[in-house]
């Protein structure tokens, strides 16, 4: 009996180890070869003399920081707009009963499921005519399709978790509707709001299809620009690795910060982890 227990435990941990190797080794490998020089790339595996020349080449001698900055501007602004317009909407969906409520809620969710290419094709034409092509405003606007549904659906769940009694009590204390919202409810949903915003930022940051078509040379996000490092005539694998590693860094750090709320955010509030 005891032997069998040890055996199953070894099996379980072995399988987990196998999967985590599959999941994590590519990331480890990326960081590893980002320190390899072009010459070492071909004749060494794990043992080599690390060098910073790839980082030097990518970060200092190309426009990498400009792409990084563009990504930050677009993602942060997109999340800010979504928070300003989305949080009140989430409140309305959580607290009021009105006609077509579920239809509206589903409509907002369906933006997330719309094929990105379908949005991009006609929008490309409109943006060119309207002068929104290759601008921050244009990208921030189209990013709303990613960040808005996420924020509204997740925050709606957090509002629903708050008892109505708290609002009634605050109203009895003489607060107006607006004050109740700002002074009583917002502090209560703050952890949820912060984590949902960070997750929305990650999604916006990681998007590729929208900036690929709706921006050109003036605004270039990091996901699109990273592909450039493949396309160059002489392939510098180490530089590709640097471009990938640095662009993945913010998302991974933010993900660590919101561990507790991650499940809830990823499932749009459907699974309350």
């Amino acid at each position, binding site marked *: 009996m005891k032997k069998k227990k040890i055996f199953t435990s070894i099996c*379980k*941990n072995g399988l*987990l180890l196998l*999967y985590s190797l599959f*999941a*994590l080794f*590519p*990331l480890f*490998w*990326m960081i590893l*070869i980002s320190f390899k020089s072009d010459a070492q790339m071909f004749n060494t*595996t794990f043992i080599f003399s690390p060098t910073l020349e790839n980082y030097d080449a990518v970060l200092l001698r190309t426009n990498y920081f400009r792409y990084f900055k563009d990504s930050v501007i677009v993602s942060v602004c997109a999340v800010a707009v*979504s928070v*300003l317009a989305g949080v*009140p*909407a989430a409140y*309305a*969906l959580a*607290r*009021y*009963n009105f006609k077509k409520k579920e239809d509206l809620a589903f409509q907002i969710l*369906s*933006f997330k*499921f*719309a*094929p990105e*290419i*379908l949005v991009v*094709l*006609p929008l490309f034409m*409109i943006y060119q005519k309207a002068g929104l092509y290759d601008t921050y405003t244009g990208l921030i606007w*189209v990013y709303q*399709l990613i960040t*808005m549904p996420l924020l509204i659906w997740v925050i709606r769940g957090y509002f*629903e978790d*708050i*008892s109505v009694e708290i609002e009634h009590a605050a109203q009895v204390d003489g607060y107006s*509707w607006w004050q109740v919202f700002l002074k009583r409810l917002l502090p209560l949903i703050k952890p949820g709001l912060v984590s949902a915003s960070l997750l929305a930022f990650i999604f916006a*940051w*990681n*998007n*590729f*299809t929208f900036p690929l*078509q709706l921006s050109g040379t003036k605004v270039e996000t990091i*996901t699109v620009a*990273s*592909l450039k490092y*493949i396309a160059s005539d002489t392939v510098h694998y180490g530089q*590709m*690795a640097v*471009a*990938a590693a640095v*662009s993945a860094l913010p*998302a*991974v750090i933010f993900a*660590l910060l919101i561990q507790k709320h991650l499940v809830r955010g*990823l499932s749009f509030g*459907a*699974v309350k*982890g």
Partner: protein
Amino acid sequence: MNMILKRKLNREEEAPREDLNTLAWITRARPYLIMLPSLLITTGILIPFAMAVYYSLTNYSFRLPQNSFVWFRNWINMFTDPAFWHAVWVTLRYAFFATGVEMLLGLGIAMLLGNTDNRFTKILKVVLTFPLMVAPVIGTIIWQLMTNNAVGILEKFLNLFGIYNFSWAAAHETAMFTAVMIDVWVYCPFVIILILSGIQSLPKSPFESAKIDGGSAWFNFRNLTLPMLKPCIYIALLFRLMASLQEFSIIFALTKGGPGDTLMNLSVTAYNTGFAFQKFGASLPYILCLWVIINIVARQIVNRWMLSQKQASGRNLIPEKGGKS
């Protein structure tokens, strides 16, 4: 406190009559007013949807100075084009394999993680989400580095088993496998953490009584765990199915749909027709077709999920008529 509450409530009931009409109107309209900005921002961007339908009936191209109305020629061309049916087949196959593997592997790993509690699994629960946070395009770049036959670690690994120059994304036979593998690498953690959170919130008592009854592990899984996990599995399936049906980033970054037309799903085909071949009008039917498929499937699943969610928990609602000002 109670006294004050009562007095306040009474005072509100005695509100002057003439104000009531405007007040009621504002109260009724408030939820719509609150939602207006978010709807304007998102719906404004949706004008393209309507335009897409119109332009799918024209021969619009960025090269032609003028476009003309061609009725259903684009649609007929599409349905008679074998490339379209190939794209549908690729789309379905990709979605089936990617979603299937992710669901099965995700469920398995989540069960293992949920049932063992030691330091190793505690760390794993955090770090396993990393691939999900890396942009799919970046993930694809990483895998291209891994599968590169000149410098990639996977080539060196396969050499140990006597396999040389495995073709990965470069050959017709292995391209789908490679793309699905990358999709699984990126999105399996999503399924894992969703189902894991479901497992962790399962009630303990049914499992304790099952232990006394002495049922086998498989029996418990089939008859206790799986039924109770259904809502979670449902959500994971919905999200993965929707996304893998329209996958673009991974395939585009990997081979741009190649080699040949091996990985040309509907998204990539529409993109190529519209931008690479500049046949804008002709590209729209492809994507509208995909949109119809996705919308039908999504609405079905979401409606059912909403029903189950409502049954699971009552909602905190301010009744429509009693809304406070």
